[in-house]
């Protein structure tokens, strides 16, 4: 292999990567960073400064919405982990070879339709005159139709639904890599179920858990339709604020500031999560 050919192919392979990262990821982020420090002082008149950020910090509505979004996202992430782990375990360790692929594929079902249709499906099921409420009335379990939409619980159910697949996939792939002999060794040396779970399974699955949590958290924090459509009157979500700034208030400057704030905030949460678990991006998310 000649050295020049190696150089040339390196350049050829590097170019698309560099263009992609530079033009579609880095420059646009710098772009909103730049726009976010422009202050509108009049029609088509701008100055530079941090007023947009100051507005963001001083207005409790925005702050609280961001905190609420983060808090609910963490909750959704935790729920997805708790609900998804047994499923991932089943797929990776209990199901037979053949049903494994089928089950795995079934986990992808939510991906088959858009967020919109999923939310739409939930609405059909959960609204006051929806399938569940009406069925319960019909069976005499409840006397009055109940409204199951427009509260945080529903938003959480819907969000967990949308993201749980991204929790299960990395979990399955790490758990599949685990030799059953490790578990058996754990029991053989005297461990109880709990000990084996706590000291062997969890540490082993940690990269998968962290990867799943990061992706789930990011998707939740960045979701738009599900909280809006299922949350109704009580659904304030930070992406909606960004949307409002951009679409209903044409205020790109503060919208960009919101965007940058969201990015900084979520990056912080991800960083903190990685720190706490002693993992890194490259060993978790990238590993799948």
């Amino acid at each position, binding site marked *: 292999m000649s050295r020049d050919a190696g150089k040339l192919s390196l350049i050829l392979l590097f170019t698309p990567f560099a263009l992609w990262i530079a033009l579609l990821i880095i420059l646009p982020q710098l772009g909103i960073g730049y726009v976010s420090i422009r202050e509108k002082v009049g029609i088509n008149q701008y100055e530079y400064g941090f007023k947009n950020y100051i507005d963001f910090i001083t207005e409790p509505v925005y702050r609280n919405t961001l905190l609420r979004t983060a808090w609910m996202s963490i909750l959704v992430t935790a729920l997805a982990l708790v609900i998804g782990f047994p499923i991932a375990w089943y797929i990776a360790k209990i199901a037979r070879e053949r049903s494994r692929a089928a089950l795995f594929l079934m986990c992808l079902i939510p991906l088959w339709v858009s967020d919109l249709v999923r939310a739409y499906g939930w609405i059909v099921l959960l609204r*006051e005159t929806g399938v569940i409420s009406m069925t319960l009335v019909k069976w005499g379990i409840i006397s009055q139709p109940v409204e199951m939409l427009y509260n945080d619980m529903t938003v959480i159910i819907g969000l967990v639904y949308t993201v749980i697949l991204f929790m299960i996939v990395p979990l399955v792939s790490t758990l599949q890599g685990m030799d059953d002999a490790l578990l058996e060794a754990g029991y053989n040396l005297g461990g109880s179920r709990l000990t084996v779970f706590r000291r062997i399974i969890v540490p082993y699955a940690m990269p998968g858990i962290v990867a799943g949590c990061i992706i789930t958290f990011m998707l939740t924090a960045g979701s738009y339709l599900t909280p809006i459509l299922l949350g109704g009157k009580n659904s304030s979500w930070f992406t909606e604020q960004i949307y409002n700034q951009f679409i209903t208030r044409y205020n790109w400057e503060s919208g960009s500031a919101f965007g940058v704030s969201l990015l900084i905030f979520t990056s912080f949460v991800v960083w903190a999560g990685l720190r706490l678990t002693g993992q890194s991006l490259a060993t978790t998310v990238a590993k799948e």
Partner: protein
Amino acid sequence: ETLRLLTWGGYAPEDVIAAFEAEYPDIDVEVTLSNNEEMIAKLRATGGTGFDLAQPSHDRVYAAQVEYNIYKPLDLSKIDTDKMTPNLLEGVKANTTIEGEVYSVPHQWGTTGMMVNVAEAPDVKSWNDLCDAQYQGRTSMRLRRTILLATAFGMGKDPFALYSDPAAYQQMLDEVTEKLIECKSVIKTYWTGGDDLSALMLSGEVVASESWDSTAFKLYGENKDIQFVPPETGALAWIDTFTIPRGGEADDAAYKWINFVLRPEITKMMSASTGAIAAVPNGIELMPDDKREAISVAFDQSDLDNLKFFANIPPGIEDMEGLALERIKAAN
């Protein structure tokens, strides 16, 4: 060539498009559904390109054009302005003339008021009734600027008069905000689209709501108890217009469309779909029968005289309103 319409849901029904394309076989109509805010946002993002004809409401053209320069002046000679209701035409022209150039002509008008299931809630008469505790969990509204204005009227204020005085306007907004936050526990949910509202009303989940008249007229056909009720303080009236984006590439087709949809036989089809009243002299008579009946049930002459036309929004007001809306949304 292609005519790219940026318009409201229902404003480009398939049968009208089919008729248009039959008459002008070389024109292809492509439709993007939108609303006032998104029309402006979209055109701002495209720098006025990407669409050939937009239909913002009359009060939303001026500020957007001054600030973002997204429209181009109309060539009135290409429009059959003589077919339009003169006072609507003049009103719109007055609202949308900048440096002597006219940017919009009227298309249809309608009102925003309340939709009420009169069998269940016969007493709903005023904007304030939407927040009446006796309808706990059975009313609705759209969390947009219209409801801010409506609530202000309901509180006995005239928001349009305060447009010129931002501080007073803010003061008014604060009161409105407070009232709507209180109201939150009464209403079932905020509706976001005509369909959403229809489902709520038809299923009986909601018995009274802020509504476009057109939506109410549609439901009247399904259930005669569901009627449009103009509030005591007057229904809010809007005129949706024709406006050509600055980067429009099919002006001739756009003018053809404008003239086409104002023809009497087309107006009828259009109104059947939109439920709104064409800006032509005998607009109401050109409505399909069921809609006409619904209108006559809803309005008497005094209601028509009491219409409150939206006034041009000066720049800056919308930011204040936006924040108010967000506060309401985020409140618990």
